[in-house]
């Protein structure tokens, strides 16, 4: 009988302990969940952003590869920095060129911004390049991608308590995969795209560029005829950005507030980038090609800068030779 009482007492204690543990477990889980939510609402620290950004850049480079022309990379960095310094964010931006005919631009956390060779081949001026890069700078400045990742409940980084530390190893690899997949397969919300357009135009104008650069490029994209090649070139742009018409209309409204035309710098763009040199005969390229010489015309205006001929917007078949003589 005594033994039975002792057994019952022990059983009661065990049951009580188990119930307490279960309750404590629930409380612990709730605390963890609240902490995760709190962490997810907290902007990434500079260290986190840099680590995730660089790992994501490596992932993006593995997909498209880099176009490594030192002069052109430097030029893109100069243009990008020119507009980025108007954002006011204390962040060093890094601009790279992806070696693909796909026409798009991508921004990653930490100030890593990429534009493709296909996009460069279809831009007409430095102002258009500035407009595209400024749009991407605005995405970074407003932490658009970061905010989407943080709000994504199933993101590897967000569902753990790791948001309070700088990810490393496999965790960083997974995070980079999430970031790049997100940036290449999904659209930002309409609000975020509008915000990037708005601030991008603002940065371009403040830098001294023609604020219509982005709008002009979007108008060109909208004019590209639908062909299998243009579908391949522009498919990524279409799937990761809102409809062009809506954006062009919004930009047209915004541009009315910028009476100063700013610099277009088409000639400098052609000198650095020379779009026909590495563009393909895609639908986009064909649409971009405006014959410099109309039927019956027999002259092309040009200029020589330190021995190098720069033609004013002329596009002629690759390999075309000309002869130049001084006036007698």
């Amino acid at each position, binding site marked *: 009988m005594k033994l039975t009482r002792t057994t019952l007492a022990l059983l009661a204690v065990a049951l009580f302990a188990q119930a307490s543990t279960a309750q404590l477990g629930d409380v612990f889980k709730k605390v963890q969940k609240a902490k995760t939510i709190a962490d997810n609402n907290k902007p990434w620290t500079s260290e986190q952003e840099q680590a995730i950004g*660089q790992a994501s850049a490596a992932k993006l480079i593995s997909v498209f590869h880099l176009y490594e022309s030192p002069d052109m990379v430097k030029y893109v960095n100069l243009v990008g920095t020119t507009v980025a310094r108007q954002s006011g964010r204390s962040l060093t931006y890094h601009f790279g060129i992806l070696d*693909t005919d796909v026409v798009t631009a991508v921004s990653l956390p930490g100030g890593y911004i990429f534009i493709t060779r296909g996009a460069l081949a279809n831009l007409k001026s430095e102002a258009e390049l500035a407009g595209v890069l400024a749009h991407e700078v605005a995405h970074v400045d407003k932490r658009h991608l970061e905010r989407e990742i943080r709000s994504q409940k199933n993101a590897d980084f967000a569902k753990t308590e790791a948001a309070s530390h700088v990810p490393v190893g496999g965790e960083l690899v997974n995070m980079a995969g999430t970031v790049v997949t997100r940036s290449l397969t999904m659209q930002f919300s309409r609000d975020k795209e509008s915000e990037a357009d708005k601030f991008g135009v603002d940065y371009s104008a403040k830098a001294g560029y023609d604020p219509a650069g982005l709008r002009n490029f979007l108008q060109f994209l909208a004019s590209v005829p639908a062909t299998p090649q243009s579908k391949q070139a522009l498919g990524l742009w279409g799937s990761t950005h809102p409809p062009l018409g809506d954006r062009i209309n919004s930009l047209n409204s915004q541009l009315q507030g910028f009476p100063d035309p700013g*610099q277009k710098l088409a000639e400098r763009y052609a000198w650095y980038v020379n779009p026909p040199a590495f563009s393909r005969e895609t639908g986009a390229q064909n649409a971009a090609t405006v014959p410099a*010489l109309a039927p019956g015309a027999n002259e092309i205006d040009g200029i020589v*800068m330190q021995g*190098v*001929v720069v*033609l004013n917007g002329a596009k002629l078949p690759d390999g075309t*030779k000309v002869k130049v*003589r001084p006036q007698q």
Partner: protein
Amino acid sequence: MKSRMRAGAILLSGLLAGSAYGLTLTLPQQQSKQDQQDASKQKNKKGTKDQQNSNSSGAQNPPAGNPPPSNPPPASNPSSGDKPTPLFGGTIGLKSSRQTKDSATLGFNGVDPNGQVQKSFLNAAVTPADAMKAQQLAQTTVAPADLVQFLQDGGLNLSAAPQKP
């Protein structure tokens, strides 16, 4: 050949600013008149091509805003001082930029015919070489002096926005 157009050229104006010269390239309406001269200049073709290549990879300043900046004239450029300038040479390539297609892959890396990124590319592991390139990109910065020169040449705004907290 259809894709190759021979053109004569007439220099219209002289020195514009510094090393900048105005010129007009003409279509070959006067082809027959110039054929004889063209033939004689073929002798100089190779040498001039070399000169152009030298210019393309050299360290000239690019054209800037409107109007063009006053760059030092070609004769004062030590890198090209010993060579004839293309302006007064024979045949030159039309490409006016230092960029050529030689270093581009000319292809749609990573996307399917619909322009969507292939999952196999997204799932592929990052190679050490890719990681190294990202690291090099992280170290890519613009020298302040280069930026100032760039802004001045383009007639762009020299001042930046105040930094946010």
